[in-house]
């Protein structure tokens, strides 16, 4: 077919009736001579198919009556071929798929020069002819002064899609169907981008369906690879274009040029006299060549990637017994895998054998572990040790063009881009001493326990094909989890279209060796992105907060009287048994504004001996929540109340939390009281614990209480009692500080909402008053007193809270940073030394510097945890941050389950009631501790995330310029903290200027010097001015505060 001229083909198309009848009437086993000429068969597989059909049998239905239009296509123009391809399914089955291909001659060239094509141009059902795309006067270059049309091949598009999207060059491009199909198979995101380009008016991209045009269709020949066949199809199309345009009567006929990077293809083009040029050469001839050349990927020479297909991406895991013996003998190490928040290809694992965490670099070494998994690692040989990353590597940026459908059987586990990103890393960290010192690296050899949960995220829009946006075809798409540490999850769905733009919940099902990404499935949709309901639910799910309404069984445990419940009037009532009547005391509560679940109240009164009686009264939740009933079970699962900006997820039903237990003013309530006799210097003379009935006189907010104390005209007993409390609390605080308690800091802000719409309007940093500290001190005192008591009575089962001393190495880096940048010394041998040296960390005229250091120091700490006394030795009980040798939580039983347990234990300790077996069983208590530790942490994170979300929302539609401080520096960006909003933001160098400024990162001095397009230097702790705006990333659909550097201060 190749050798035949167009006219021959045309004459052969007219097949006589007789021949055809013979053909159809016979067995139709093989092609008959003249017919083949007009037929094109892609594959030799189907030589048994009828090779032709009479053109007259193609029946074109005429105009529909209701849609008055007609199409005058040449009925003789069609021809039939078929396409056979083999597809292998997941289960390994091979399917042979046969498709018909109708070849025709009315596919226009779409050049405005050509009048022939315009005459026969196809019309849509509405009778509209699509306007011709390609300019009649296309731009010329040095090589093609008469103007040119470009025909890129697949590799050109794969390697340099960015180039084609340029606004200054690459106009009048013909995209061949062959190329489009190949591109779609290689990268769906790139395909989608290309389709976007063809829709743009000014770029003038035209898709020419060469595979359907009779003259440009090519048959795959015997032993011809599919790539070679496609290359030939491209050349044929280019040749046809040149011949075709040559027939027009135009004076200057543009050349149609093939753009390729395949040397073989270009050579063949030369032989066949088809204009072709290397992409790089072509770009060099353009005006803006320098800039454009940078956009071509390094390896654009065709890689025969398809041939060297690796069967498995990841190394196999060791067997469990091998891992166990390895761990036992010390050859392997077990620990929890954590992913760096700034670099998704770097993880770390803390193992007992090493003081510093082991670094796990790269996809290969991470070997399918997901953040939180318990894994076994093997330390790599020393020559492979590396420094921790100083570069921000984000998954989205690097893998955005991956194809979800082709996830299996793609080239290699580590993509070229990923490898390069890591490579630069290693280069940069060579020859550094302190921070850049190579650290032991490891690779994961097995997973002991997966910590997979359900993940909230959204579908990566670029991984969704065009049809799936509308259709019901099943296809693979990527889910980008909200949690950056979690890799993209591949899910198969039939509703990709509907899921786009929604928050959805998925679970990971498996992660096989053959699959680059974990495979999961869709659970449900939470609603549209950025709607308050969906985002809140997403947040709750992401932090595993139990937010469903309380089941009936739980509500059945509530007192029958409901809101009408009252403390029994008669003191003979069983409820009064062993309760002290403290209704006469002048008790008040101090809480944040609008607090409904008041779980603590205080009083103080002078004693005749000059000492003071101080009482802390805690809501007696254990009276209402009996051990091991449905409500108790529910509370133990929930573990804690979660406070979000606009919502509170209660641990206990509303009735208890905000009414019956809540120590509301002016009403009698059951309480659990801790009563001290304190000397004027705030030393404990005596302490006792009792169940009681109290009547709070007033519920103050911190501000109100402060005002009342400060107002000298108020001389009533209640106010004086508060003054006493304040005086004592200051002494207590001093004592604590002397003992080495840390005053740590975390950026805390408060979101102000518009009262009606509850839209966030402003963000304020939280103010701390003396009264805050007043309440805090007495709560600490109560907790410590209770902890001593329950530990004394129940040395095995007492529920306590400890805060481990941080490993010294945690502070190494911060200490070094302070030393290098500010000449400050951070001592961390004891909490006292740390507290003192933190106090010394001040900068002239920069009060926030101290806070910044405290925030950074806080991050070096361990997190506090609940534990069962029997599981640790006494020295381990220590609470590092509070500098107390023993501690528990007792004061917030409405919102924390641990406090409720402590209440029961204390009640048993004072002989009020017998200890329920559930509170006595150590195994069960340990499980409870484990759960509430997790819940506590999640609640904090959820609360913070909620604040962050609302801060973002309050910024929506406006731009704020604020001071910020540099917290961390990478070689390609830095992290700043904005005190005003309490948010951290990443500023990437590539966002600073276009092109990305050159940078030199001095890891020893913590300085990033920028040159080229943006001249500045950024160093650690530096104050900078940033512009914060709320940006929605169109590609990922994520909204977030985006920061820009305005200037370094």
């Amino acid at each position, binding site marked *: 077919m190749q050798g035949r001229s167009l006219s021959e083909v045309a004459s052969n198309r007219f097949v006589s009736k007789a021949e055809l009848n013979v053909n159809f009437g016979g067995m139709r086993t093989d092609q008959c001579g003249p017919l083949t000429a007009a037929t094109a068969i892609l594959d030799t597989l189907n030589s048994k198919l009828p090779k032709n059909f009479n053109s007259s049998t193609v029946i074109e239905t005429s105009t*529909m009556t209701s849609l008055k239009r007609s199409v005058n296509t040449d009925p003789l123009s069609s021809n039939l071929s078929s396409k056979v391809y083999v597809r292998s399914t997941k289960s390994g089955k091979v399917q042979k798929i046969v*498709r018909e291909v109708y070849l*025709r001659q009315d596919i226009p060239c779409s050049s405005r020069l050509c009048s022939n094509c315009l005459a026969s141009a196809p019309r849509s059902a*509405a009778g509209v002819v699509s306007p011709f795309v390609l300019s009649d006067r296309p731009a010329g270059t040095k090589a093609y002064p008469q103007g040119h049309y470009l025909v890129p091949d697949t590799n050109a598009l794969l390697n340099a899609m960015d180039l084609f999207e340029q606004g200054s060059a690459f106009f009048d491009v013909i995209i061949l169907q062959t190329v489009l199909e190949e591109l779609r198979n290689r990268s769906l995101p790139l395909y989608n981008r290309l389709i976007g380009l063809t829709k743009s008016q000014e770029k003038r991209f035209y898709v020419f369906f060469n595979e359907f045009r009779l003259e440009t269709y090519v048959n795959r020949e015997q032993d011809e690879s599919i790539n070679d066949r496609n290359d030939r199809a491209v050349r044929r199309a280019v040749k046809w274009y040149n011949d075709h345009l040559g027939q027009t009567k135009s004076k200057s006929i543009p050349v149609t040029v093939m753009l390729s990077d395949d040397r073989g293809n270009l050579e063949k083009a030369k032989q066949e006299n088809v204009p072709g040029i290397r992409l790089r050469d072509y770009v060099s001839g353009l005006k803006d060549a320098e800039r454009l050349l940078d956009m071509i990927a390094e390896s654009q020479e065709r890689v025969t990637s398809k041939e060297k297909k690796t069967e498995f991406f990841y190394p196999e895991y060791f067997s469990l017994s091998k891992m166990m013996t390895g761990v036992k003998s010390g050859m392997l190490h077990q620990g929890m895998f954590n992913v760096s928040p700034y670099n998704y290809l770097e993880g770390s694992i803390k193992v007992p054998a090493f003081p510093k965490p082991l670094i796990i670099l790269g996809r290969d070494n991470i070997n399918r572990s997901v953040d939180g998994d318990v894994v076994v690692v093997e330390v790599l040989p020393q020559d492979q040790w590396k420094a921790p990353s100083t570069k921000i590597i984000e998954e989205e940026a690097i893998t955005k063009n991956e194809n979800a459908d082709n996830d299996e059987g793609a080239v290699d586990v580590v993509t070229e881009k990923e490898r390069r990103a890591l490579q630069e890393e290693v280069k940069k960290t060579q020859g550094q001493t302190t921070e850049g010192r190579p650290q032991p690296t490891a690779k994961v050899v097995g997973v002991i326990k997966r910590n997979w949960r359900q993940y909230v995220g959204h579908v990566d829009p670029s991984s969704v094909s*065009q*049809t799936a946006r509308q*259709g019901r075809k099943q296809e693979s798409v990527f889910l980008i989890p909200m949690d950056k540490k979690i890799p993209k999850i591949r899910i198969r769905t039939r509703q990709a279209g509907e899921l786009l733009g929604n928050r959805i919940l998925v679970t990971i099902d498996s992660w096989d060796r053959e699959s680059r990404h974990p495979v999961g499935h869709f659970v449900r949709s939470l609603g549209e992105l950025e709607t308050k309901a969906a985002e809140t639910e997403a947040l709750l799910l992401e932090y595993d907060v139990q937010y469903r309404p309380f089941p009936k069984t739980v509500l059945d445990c509530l007192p029958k009287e409901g809101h009408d419940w009252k403390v029994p009037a008669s003191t003979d009532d069983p409820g009064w048994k062993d309760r002290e009547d403290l209704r006469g005391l002048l008790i008040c509560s101090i809480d944040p504004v609008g607090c409904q679940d008041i779980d603590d109240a205080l009083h103080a009164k002078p004693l005749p001996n000059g000492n003071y009686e101080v009482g802390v009264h805690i809501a007696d939740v254990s009276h209402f929540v009996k051990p091991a009933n449905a409500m108790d079970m529910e509370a133990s699962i929930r573990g804690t109340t979660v406070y979000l900006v606009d919502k509170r997820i209660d641990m206990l039903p509303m009735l208890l939390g905000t009414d019956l237990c809540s120590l509301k003013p002016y009403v009698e309530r059951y309480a659990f009281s801790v009563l001290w006799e304190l000397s004027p210097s705030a030393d404990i003379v005596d302490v006792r614990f009792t169940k009681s009935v109290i009547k709070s006189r007033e519920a103050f907010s911190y501000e109100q209480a402060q005002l009342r104390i400060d107002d000298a005209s108020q001389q009533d007993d209640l106010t004086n009692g508060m003054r006493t409390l304040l005086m004592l609390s200051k002494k207590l605080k001093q004592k604590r500080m002397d003992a080495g308690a840390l005053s740590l800091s975390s950026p805390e802000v408060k979101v102000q909402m518009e009262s009606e719409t509850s839209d966030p309007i402003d963000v304020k940093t939280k103010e701390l008053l003396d009264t805050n500290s007043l309440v805090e001190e007495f709560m600490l005192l109560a907790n410590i007193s209770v902890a001593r008591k329950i530990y004394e009575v129940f040395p095995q089962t007492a529920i306590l809270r400890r805060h481990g001393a941080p490993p010294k190495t945690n502070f190494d880096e911060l200490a070094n940073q302070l030393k290098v940048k500010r000449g400050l010394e951070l001592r961390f041998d004891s909490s006292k030394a740390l507290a003192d040296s933190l106090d010394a960390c001040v900068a002239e005229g920069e009060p926030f510097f101290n806070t910044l250091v405290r925030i950074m120091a806080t991050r070096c700490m361990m997190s506090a945890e609940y534990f069962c006394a029997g599981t640790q030795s006494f020295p381990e009980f220590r609470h590092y941050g509070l500098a107390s040798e023993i501690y528990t939580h007792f004061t917030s039983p409405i919102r924390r389950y641990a406090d409720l347990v402590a209440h029961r234990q204390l009640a048993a300790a004072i002989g009020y009631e017998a200890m329920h077996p559930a509170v006595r069983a150590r195994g069960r208590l340990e499980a409870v501790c484990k759960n509430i530790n997790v819940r506590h942490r999640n609640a904090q994170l959820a609360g913070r995330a909620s604040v962050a979300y609302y801060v973002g929302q309050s910024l929506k539609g406006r731009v704020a310029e604020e001071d910020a401080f540099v917290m961390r520096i990478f070689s390609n960006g830095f992290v700043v903290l904005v005190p005003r909003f309490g948010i951290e933001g990443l500023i990437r160098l590539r966002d600073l200027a276009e092109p990305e400024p050159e940078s030199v990162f001095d890891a020893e001095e913590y300085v990033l010097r920028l040159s080229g397009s943006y001249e500045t230097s950024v160093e650690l702790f530096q104050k900078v001015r940033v512009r914060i705006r709320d940006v929605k990333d169109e590609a990922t659909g994520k909204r977030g505060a985006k920061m820009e550097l305005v200037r370094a201060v």
Partner: protein
Amino acid sequence: MPLDTSTYDLALLRVDGRRWNELRRLHGQIRTQAAADGSSYLEMGNTKVMCVIAGPSEDAGRRRAGMGVSASGSTAPGGSAAADVVVSIVVGGFSSVDRKRRARGDKRIQELQATIAKALASNLHVHLYPRSTISISLHVLSQDGSLLAALINAATLALVDAGVPMTDYLVACTAGSTSTHSAGDEGADPLVDLNTQEEQELPFLTLATLGATDKVAVLVCETRVQVSRLEGMMASAADACKGVRKFLDQVVREKGHKMVTEGAIEKGASMAMDIDV
């Protein structure tokens, strides 16, 4: 993998290179089995079906149950006043990409049988054959979309061969819309004669008309489609049916012509048919 239906807008070309209003290659044969009362073979693209008719023949007692689905004009107790039309469809295990066995009582097949039986019963002059049965047996050899349409067309051809009087050719074709239900694209082109890929990706309906008229005998739509697009789809399907009728007519005439020229039939005056095709 070739492209999908979303590329239609780029050049008004469908996945197989057709325009919106083009049928696939049609190929039909009539009287393929000499022993049968009527038979036909029909290809619509790669959908290939065969039909064999037995009857009309007198009821020999009660028919065995489960043979197929029947429909008759009127069922009177103690013997029907009109012929029963019994349709049974056998789908070859080799007919689709996945080789799978269909159970005998497959609901989809039963529905196809019922649809065809009812449509034919109202078109055929069954009242001429009281207490008898017209048994239509359809065999699916290869599936590539528009299966119901192909089955109806093949049955019509075979019934012509069997000489059962009918009002007109019962011809069927599918029509789809280039845009899916959710896309909300009002100007979407209708498509006729869908292949498997298009059926999977797009909303479509099957429409059968009586000959070249606009009388609709069958309308089956199992996908969600916006009602505003329905008219366009039905209109183009009806047009396509006209094309199919022309083709079926041509097959019949060619066969007749051949039989006359071969001398199988005397060219009598009674044959008003113009055999100069």
